[in-house]
């Protein structure tokens, strides 16, 4: 967590000219992005702008049609890359939580440690319990996801990523499926992570949260970057007409 300054030269995540075609439609049209170690980058844009698809290209849950993704300077969009290793190092939190309903909360969080990191079961469960404590769910380890509220389930999903000690975590609209009163408990956990120096890429329209936590804001439209810059600058003095329109619409 303190190694922010010494390896600054290499960005944590770098995307170069990412294109994505779904059948005939050209969803991503050459997107570049650089996210430094410990930085929080936000992706914004209306639905269909390609923000989720771009996010998913970063850990190759979606395969980019063209272009490269680099993690700590290493190209991962390569046939020889062990994609499972890459994904183990980059956490992902989904809009719909996507917890495993047939497992307890603890088993959900320990699964990757046991089968990907090959940790002994007892050690994995300890680590999982620690991660759950960090998101404030130490009392719910033996429950099943269905017994938890949406906000609690999303925090379990964050713990599931966190337990793997990832280099970065990708958040795909983590609060969009939540009831309004549960949004804050999730954003609170995310802000703490940001303060602790976790590299994060967040698709979110929670302006208040982004203003406090995000260093960089990237505005996408029709598969292209229309504007990017420090969060406050983009929010307060948007240069592009499309950004202004969008910000007006979501406020």
């Amino acid at each position, binding site marked *: 967590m303190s190694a922010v300054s010494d390896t600054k030269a290499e960005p944590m995540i770098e995307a170069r000219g990412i294109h994505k075609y779904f059948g005939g439609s050209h969803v991503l049209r050459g997107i570049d992005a650089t996210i430094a170690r410990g930085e929080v980058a936000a992706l914004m844009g209306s639905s269909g702008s390609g923000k989720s698809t771009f996010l998913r290209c970063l850990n190759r*849950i979606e395969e980019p049609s063209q272009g490269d993704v680099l993690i700590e300077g290493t190209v991962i969009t390569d046939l020889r890359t062990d994609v499972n*290793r890459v994904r*183990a190092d980059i956490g992902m939190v*989904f809009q719909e939580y996507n917890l*495993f*309903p*047939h497992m307890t909360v603890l088993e959900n969080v320990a*699964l990757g440690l046991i*089968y990907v990191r090959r940790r002994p079961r007892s050690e994995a469960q300890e680590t999982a319990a620690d991660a759950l404590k960090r998101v404030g769910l130490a009392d719910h380890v033996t429950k099943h996801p269905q017994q938890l509220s949406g906000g609690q389930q999303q925090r379990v999903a964050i713990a599931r990523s966190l337990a*793997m000690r990832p280099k970065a975590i990708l958040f795909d609209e983590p609060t969009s499926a939540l009831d309004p009163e549960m949004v804050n408990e999730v954003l609170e956990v995310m802000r703490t992570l940001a303060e602790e120096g976790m590299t994060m890429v967040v698709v979110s329209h929670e302006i208040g949260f982004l203003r406090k936590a995000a260093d960089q804001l990237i505005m996408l439209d029709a598969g292209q970057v229309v504007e990017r810059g420090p969060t406050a600058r983009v929010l307060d003095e948007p240069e592009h007409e499309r950004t202004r329109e969008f910000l007006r619409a979501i406020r």
Partner: protein
Amino acid sequence: MRQELIKSRPIPLILMFLVGLGYLLAAPATSGIGIAFDITATVAVFVAFLFLFVPVQIDKGAPLWLQNLSALALLVLATAAFFRWADGDWGRLGYLFFNVEVMSRPGAMARMLSGLWIAVQVFLFSLVLSTLLGMFMAVVRSIVNDALLNFFIDAYVDVFRAVPPIVLLLVTYSALPYSGIVLSPFATGVVALTLIEGAYLTEVFRSGIEAIHRNQVLSARSIGLTAWQAMRLVVLPQSVRIVLPDYSNRLIGLMKRTAETSVIAIAEILKVAQDLQSQFVNATPLVVGALLYMVVLFPMTRFVSRLEKSRPRQ
């Protein structure tokens, strides 16, 4: 008035039952005006009985034993009426189909039971093999998802679902020896049933796998699990719960289908029963065979309907 009509009256009901039964057991009138009277009287017995019977059944205050007992009484009346009117040769029927003496001849029951054991063996072997086959096909289809491979799997499923088991049994049994493959009837039966059952189970497991939302796989893969691990640890445990009722129904069908292996001389229940039938010139072994199937299948069907009630929601 309405209240009066639906009030349950046990004592009149019991009296009506006794009177009705008494009449039905009395010797029937056989000719002329007597028959017309007899029909009228029989109908009257039932109308009067139902008039008292229905209120007992709908009255929520009526005790359960009374409701059950009166239902039994109705059944007794119906049986009495049947025997009174039917022109049956009951002695012959009993001798041919329910003949205890025939079944107590030396070796008869022992052979029937060995038939049961063989049927259960055919069932268990086909069950295990077809489950493995169906699960394997469905999993491969989902994970590899290669167009050519999918075509072959779908072709296998379509072909073997379109062949009646008894036809496949006869064809494999008579054709295999010419290909140089010599299998015992038992092995041939197991292979044929496995192929057919495997095709159905491929579909059962495939539907279970497809019922799991794509996001579950995405989520599993995003942790770094391989496709196989995601299938084994995340998808299949959920799929199996979903398909359990369908699967168990197939299982019951498979047990019944073991009877068809009798056509290739596997000495299972039906084959043994038919052999005994011609040997003794008596159909009782068939009835005993039917009972043996029920002994196995009744607990299975009970178990399955319990499973269906506890089908997981979501």
